[in-house]
């Protein structure tokens, strides 16, 4: 086995962390991965178990109940959780705090941080992030969910869609428009923490998706929902830049998921090729199969290097958004290719719901869409390159 299954930046500390996450994922996710996907849900208790295993707190400060560590540790968790847990949807929903809590961490007051972050890291509460709306997604500056000030409250009206963990979330970081002057575009956006059971806030629909079935994805609706002004993160109008800043880590973690998914699809394919027989020999006895596998391996390795390199530089604040955008596109392209080849190599079995690569192939379809589409990534790259 020559293919590296770890990142080159990993120290003994990362290796220890990886072992812990692996044990958790192998024992508490993998045996249920297929069933949870078919059931379109995993037990809420898994959040507490993940917290007890030290998985949720990684890359959050110890004074808020975190375990410390930076983005490189987060990457190791993402990699091991997906690879050993064998369920992209479960890992995604279990990690939905990874896209919402950093906003509280970066913008919140001490009181807000102490109120919202520790219960999530203990696995007692579930956190989600809500930006996209039925009428605006990539075009963040066109969001229309409104928040009108009324004394100590905002009155929020509008809806959000494609929200990971939306049905079960206890707190949602929601992007709203606090300034009715729409010509302000992105400068009118503000982030509010909206808690479950706030009158006027409901998860109106659990959405049916191509993949990520075990992950709950919701449409949220706000009608005259009164949110205390104390739940506002940062100043009015500070939402957009906070969201944009948050995207770098989110996109890199997504790229890491791509690497783990592809590695899993590749390993499944190698195992299948070595045992499945056709025309009197195993599939791996055919040059065409060996070359297909070699092509898959060759795509995975450079992306792991790129993602690892970028994580180290991003942790030091030395990577640009354009580089992250390139890494995301390169990773999602690679993952789509590898999963597609894996299905092809499995033949009829590759099209069956009982086969892991069938599920991975569906799960992988999200990656070029989520956390900023492939096209938006290209816009970022084009702008940075000056054309």
């Amino acid at each position, binding site marked *: 086995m020559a293919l590296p299954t770890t990142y080159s930046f990993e120290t003994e500390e990362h290796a220890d962390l990886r072992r812990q996450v692996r044990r958790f994922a192998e024992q508490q996710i993998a045996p249920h991965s297929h069933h949870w996907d078919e059931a379109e849900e995993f037990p809420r208790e898994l959040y507490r178990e993940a917290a007890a295993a*030290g998985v949720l707190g990684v890359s959050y400060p110890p004074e808020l109940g975190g375990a410390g560590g930076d983005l490189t540790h987060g990457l190791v968790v993402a990699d091991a959780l997906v690879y050993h847990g064998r369920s992209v949807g479960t890992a995604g929903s279990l990690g939905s705090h990874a896209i919402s809590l950093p906003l509280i961490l970066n913008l919140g007051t001490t009181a807000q941080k102490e109120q919202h972050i520790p219960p999530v890291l203990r696995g007692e509460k579930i956190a989600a992030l809500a930006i996209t709306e039925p009428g605006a997604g990539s075009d963040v500056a066109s969001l229309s969910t409104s928040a009108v000030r009324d004394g100590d409250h905002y009155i929020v009206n509008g809806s959000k869609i494609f929200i990971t963990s939306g049905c079960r979330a206890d707190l949602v970081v929601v992007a709203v428009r606090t300034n009715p002057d729409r010509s302000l575009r992105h400068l009118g956006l503000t982030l509010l923490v909206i808690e479950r059971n706030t009158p006027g806030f409901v998860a109106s629909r659990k959405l049916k998706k191509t993949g990520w079935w075990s992950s709950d994805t919701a449409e949220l609706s706000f009608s005259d929902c009164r949110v205390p002004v104390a739940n506002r993160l940062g100043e009015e109008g500070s939402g957009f830049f906070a969201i944009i800043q948050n995207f770098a880590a989110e996109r890199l973690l997504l790229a890491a998921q791509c690497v783990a998914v592809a590695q899993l699809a590749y390993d499944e394919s190698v195992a299948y090729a070595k045992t499945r027989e056709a025309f009197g020999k195993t599939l791996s006895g055919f040059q065409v199969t060996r070359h297909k596998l070699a092509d898959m391996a060759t795509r995975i390795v450079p992306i792991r290097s790129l993602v690892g390199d970028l994580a180290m530089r991003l942790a030091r604040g030395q990577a640009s958004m354009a580089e992250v955008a390139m890494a995301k596109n390169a990773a999602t392209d690679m993952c789509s290719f590898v999963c597609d080849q894996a299905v092809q190599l499995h033949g009829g079995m590759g099209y069956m719901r009982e086969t892991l690569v069938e599920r991975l192939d569906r799960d992988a379809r999200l990656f070029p869409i989520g956390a900023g589409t492939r096209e938006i990534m290209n816009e970022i790259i084009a702008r940075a390159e000056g054309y």
Partner: protein
Amino acid sequence: MKILVTAKRIPDPGQKIKLKGNALDLSAANWQLNQFDEYAVEAALRLTEDGAAPATRQGAVTVASLGPADVQQQLRSALAMGADKAIRVEAKDEELDAVIVAKTLEKLVRRDQPDLVLMGKLAADNEGNDVGQRLAALLGWPQATFACSIQVVDGGKALLVGREVDNGVEIKKVRLPAVVTVDLRIIAPQAVKNGRTAANFAYPEGPRYASLKGIRAAKDKPIEALTLSGLGVSTALQVKTHGSELPPARQAGKKIASVHELVEKLRSEAKVL
């Protein structure tokens, strides 16, 4: 309570065994902490905690291992779980047998005088299952092997140790200091009762996970390095390994048409009748 826990590194039992000539080839082995020793670490931590979160500790847990420098990694993982310090006695695996290991541990115990030595019931590589018993004999201490439960009694002066036997659970009372080796059920949620936690207190099943915080804290915990000669242990092997061989490869099964044929084959091929 001052507890000494022993820790052996073993090759990952999930890996395929390789031979080089008639010796084990461990060059590509993934080393890990023997799981029964990991259970002993967990049991030791439970014995010294009060069950609160974060736990306040009473007593200290030292983890000791014999082996090359790499063993530090397994010791660090025990420290990351929460043990306080570690001892590594420099040795090559092939230069050790159960007698040398037991005598080395005896020296450590006489030097540090723990109240309790907790060990895995055996190491899952060679399944020797004799170091704990030897150590207890060398020290002249009471022993309780294959513990499935431990309860501190008599104000911390004795232990009630449960042992699974054929027709139930046998409870042994041992006065401290003692040697106790643990079986896998010692990691059940209520297997260890130290007298300070509530009667119905339940730990999560299994050896605890080391958090990143624990992993980082482990780096600053001391690992004392000792040598066999420094401890005055004779290095003459009393058990020599003459060779290793793999069990014969399993043959494919046969389908048999009738009972008559079965009996015939048991007689002529298997030669058991």
